[in-house]
């Protein structure tokens, strides 16, 4: 009886159903924060409290970015592709009373050293930015370099890191001290396509 039962439950049923060759596909999307980076803009001491046209250029980078999440990691063997849906940034920590626009040139540096420009943009009234700002939208990519986006997606799929390098210049700046350090943070809205065979 036991053998018959097992046979019924296992063999008979096991042979009846299959998902076929198509497998199962699912998209898992998440907004992933990148560690904030500190940016400092400076003005000569003599010009503190005076409006100036621009500050010296400042270069910063995010350090290695590995966009990971528990959800993505669980399916690491079944990932078919990554898609960058949106990239946001947010600014915080500009001292009250300071004012500046920011010219920002962003580039992506991939493992191995290749460097691809991402975007040049002006952040008007950076001191007034409190909410997160949409930098890139897949549906309306604008002037964002698609090659850089594709490179990020490829890096995610390959499990390699990348770095965002930024060169910032303050424009139309009014600082009440000789420097101001603030936080610049990126967020990535990422979709992982999972294919389960």
């Amino acid at each position: 009886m036991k053998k018959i039962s097992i046979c019924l439950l296992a063999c008979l049923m096991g042979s009846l159903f299959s998902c076929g060759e198509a497998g199962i596909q699912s998209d898992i999307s998440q907004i992933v924060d990148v560690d904030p980076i500190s940016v400092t803009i400076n003005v000569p001491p003599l010009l503190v409290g005076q409006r100036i046209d621009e500050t010296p250029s400042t270069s910063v980078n995010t350090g290695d970015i590995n966009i990971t999440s528990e959800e993505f990691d669980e399916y690491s063997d079944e990932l078919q592709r990554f898609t960058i849906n949106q990239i946001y940034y947010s600014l915080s920590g500009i001292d009250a009373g300071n004012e500046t626009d920011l010219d920002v040139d962003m580039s992506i540096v991939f493992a191995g050293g290749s460097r691809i420009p991402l975007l040049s943009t002006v952040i008007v009234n950076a001191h007034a930015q409190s909410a997160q700002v949409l930098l890139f939208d897949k549906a309306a990519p604008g002037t964002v370099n698609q090659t850089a986006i594709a490179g990020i997606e490829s890096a995610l799929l390959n499990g390699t890191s990348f770095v965002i390098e930024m060169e910032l210049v303050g424009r139309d700046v009014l600082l009440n001290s000789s420097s101001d350090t603030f936080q610049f943070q990126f967020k990535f809205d990422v979709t992982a396509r999972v294919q389960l065979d």
Partner: protein
Amino acid sequence: MRLYTKIVLIVGLSFSLSNMAKAQFDFDSFLEAGLADANKLLQSYLEPAFQGIGYGINSGWYNTARPHQTLGFDLNVSVSAAIVPTGGEFFTFNNSEYSNVRLSNGTSAQLPTLFGPNLGADDLPELTFFDNNGDQTIRISAPTGLGIEEEFPTNAVPTPMIQLGIGLVKGTDLKIRYVPNISIGDDDESEIKLFGIGLMHDIKQHLPVVKALPFDLSVFVGYTNLKTTLAVDADLNQFAEFETTGTIVQALISKKLAFITAYGGLGYAKSKTTFGLLGQYSTETTTFTDPINLAYDNGGVRANVGLRIRLLFLNIFGEYAFQEYNTATVGIGFSFREGKSSTNVPIVPGI
């Protein structure tokens, strides 16, 4: 932890030990969204599977309306396929019915059930999950169906059965379905047991006029209970338990012509299936105890027709039942000391 995978695998054990684990996505998010949402979504998604078992378990009880002679007996194995109706391939997801899960676009959508079509991620609505603070945690494609219909002629839930029938006295058969509590799985950590009992009684003998007519007429009542406990993670004392009970009451009629018996039944059948995920399950923020509890009921008129071919002691039979989930059954078995009917007049002289 791929909890959802495990749940579907457990559910899938009833249907396929190898393939249904493919229907997986991150179930932790469901739990994070709250037990009410998780239960509601799974209730709808898994409904055809459990309803199908309920319909299937009431099938295959008989292949003739003629009881055995005293101590005559038969032993049959059969498999029933409860055909999932078109309406069972999708369910309606309304944002308003969920607390922490929303469609990313729109307020209502048709989502596939487990027995719905296997849709690609581009064709599946996206669900957004929120934590209790209203912050988005993750977005996931709605679970897809398995696309069974794309691979097989019919979209059906199979139920296997094994059954012994014994002739008692006065035209009465006792039917027994029994599988002892057996362990399954690599480490014998899962269990399954089956019990069913049925009685078939020849009522034609009690009907003065009818008893002279050339067919068999009986009444049948049957009860089946299938209980399965499957290990999600035995080391963590996590188990899934599902139990199906089915009850059927029918009037049966059959007519034997040479080695072929045509039979039919009309009556009422109902079933109840419960599914529980037992144990403690932890997400990043919370530990849940016995998080999933699903229950399915169905009941209604059941009419079925069937045909049996008898070759010496061997019976090969098939039947089709008309109900919400129409159910086809095929089986094979053998029987000894079948009852005799003095009113069965051979169509072909000499047989």
